[in-house]
């Protein structure tokens, strides 16, 4: 009789096993903060983000921990359906942007513009002024062209890192190459982008081991 062995599986509601995150009736709770990877990211990256912000931007104001907190909050607010880069990359990127925003508005007040200001005018949340946003738009356009013109390997690794937020090690595993090759490739690609933004035109010299098609 098979009924004798019935209770291998038992259907029960998960009462009290889980906080709000797991409550099945919590309609449409697709937010990142409800995901297991959210708390994992938080636990793993919190100290790194704070230490980085402190080294990069000083003790504040704004307080590095406040900014890190805001960045994690933004990660948590994302809808689950939104495809983002890796959570770590998201948090670093948002935290840096928040800091730069803050500094930019401070700079505007004191009327001393940072030397690298035009390059920084990229995030659309606050457009400081028309000219700056125009320059930023032009630079983004140029950058897109430059990236599209990169050799295949350079573009793939660069975008995997910059858009998907994958670490060099992760990219290396994904493409079956060494992390040092990934690092070198992304470095070369970034150098091309930097030169292009300075000179206003693409120049693909200095890329390693690619079928060179230019004179």
């Amino acid at each position: 009789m098979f009924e004798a062995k019935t209770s291998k599986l038992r259907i029960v509601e998960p009462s009290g096993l889980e906080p709000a995150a797991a409550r099945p009736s919590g309609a449409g709770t697709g937010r990142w903060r409800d995901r297991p990877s959210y708390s994992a990211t938080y636990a793993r990256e919190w100290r790194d983000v704070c230490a980085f912000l402190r080294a990069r931007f000083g003790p504040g104001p704004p307080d590095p921990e406040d900014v890190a907190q805001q960045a994690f909050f933004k990660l948590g607010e994302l809808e689950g359906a939104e495809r983002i880069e890796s959570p770590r990359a998201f948090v670093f990127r948002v935290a840096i942007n928040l800091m730069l925003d803050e500094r930019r508005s401070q700079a505007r007040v004191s009327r001393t513009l940072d030397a690298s200001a035009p390059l920084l005018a990229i995030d659309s949340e606050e457009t400081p002024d028309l000219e700056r946003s125009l320059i930023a738009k032009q630079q983004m356009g140029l950058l897109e062209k430059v990236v599209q013109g990169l050799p295949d390997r350079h573009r793939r690794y660069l975008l995997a890192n910059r858009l998907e937020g994958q670490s060099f090690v992760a990219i290396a595993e994904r493409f079956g190459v060494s992390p040092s090759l990934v690092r070198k490739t992304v470095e070369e690609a970034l150098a091309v982008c930097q030169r292009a933004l300075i000179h206003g035109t693409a120049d693909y010299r200095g890329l390693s081991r690619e079928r060179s098609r230019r004179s």
Partner: protein
Amino acid sequence: MEPPIIEDCRVNEAVDPDSPLGQTARAWALAVMGEDFPPERSRQFGAWLDADPRHRHAYEQAEAVVMMLGALRTPTAIEPVRRPAARWRVLAMAAAGGLLAACLALAVLALPGPTYETRPGESHQVALSDGSQIILAPASRLHAASRWRPRALSLEHGEAFFVVAHQGGQPFTVQAGDALVRVVGTRFNVHSGVGRAVRVEVEQGVVQVSNRPDRQDRVVTLRAGQTVVADTRGLTVGTLAQADLAGGWRQGRLAYDDAPLAEVVADLNRYGRRPLAIGSPATGRLKVTTAFDVAQADRFVAELPRVLPVRLTPDGRGGRILVAADPKRAPEPHAP
């Protein structure tokens, strides 16, 4: 788009990215975004930044470009450029390499990811490049969404057990029917049954399952020892008697709790036994609660007529058909 003219005189202060300082600054900017950056490293980084105002200046320029790249709009950036052939010559210098790269990228992006398939009766172990392991049950088929996303898998049919490697917080997803399973690193089983029902069992770690993610339906988070059935009625959470019962098929154990007979029969057929068919949908809907060893499957089938209102008839080709014991009064256990 015309090449932009950077008129701003501040750009004159740009640090040459090929100078030693420019290279060091770029290396730092990339390390932050592409490598582990524990607090000790931040301290070294801070010391370098503070050592000379030019360091900070150079770093900020490199970081700015890194940040801009992160803000590229994905479609234009990843999708290759399509241009009319007539413009080939005009674009020769800059675009020849670009077009080639674009074509390669198109090929890479369009390339479907690998597909893993097992025949009835055979199971197969797959090692993914990220270190994850998959044990594919008999007569199952699984594919990666694309080469580009090897951690996004679809279970087309059958069953598979996943041992997911952590990879820098990168999610690992398995789509089965309308259910989407999302994890970071764990061990779990996905069974894609009949009637679009999907069963997920978790042996270790935490797994998130959503039904019809396109409609933002509910999401459940499962811990070790929990299971969920995702079907047209939604998500039904349950518990396993023990967490290590997840994916019991790997030890040849098949267990069902109030499962439709059609699902049991579909599973048995995956193990390459004598083909077994079901005579009518009503018979397929009969509910079964049982656990048995695959090796004992024939005995299980032979005993079915004793526990369910069914009988076995040969199909004339070596297989058998399970039909209602009394065809005039087909059992309708769930109909009023």
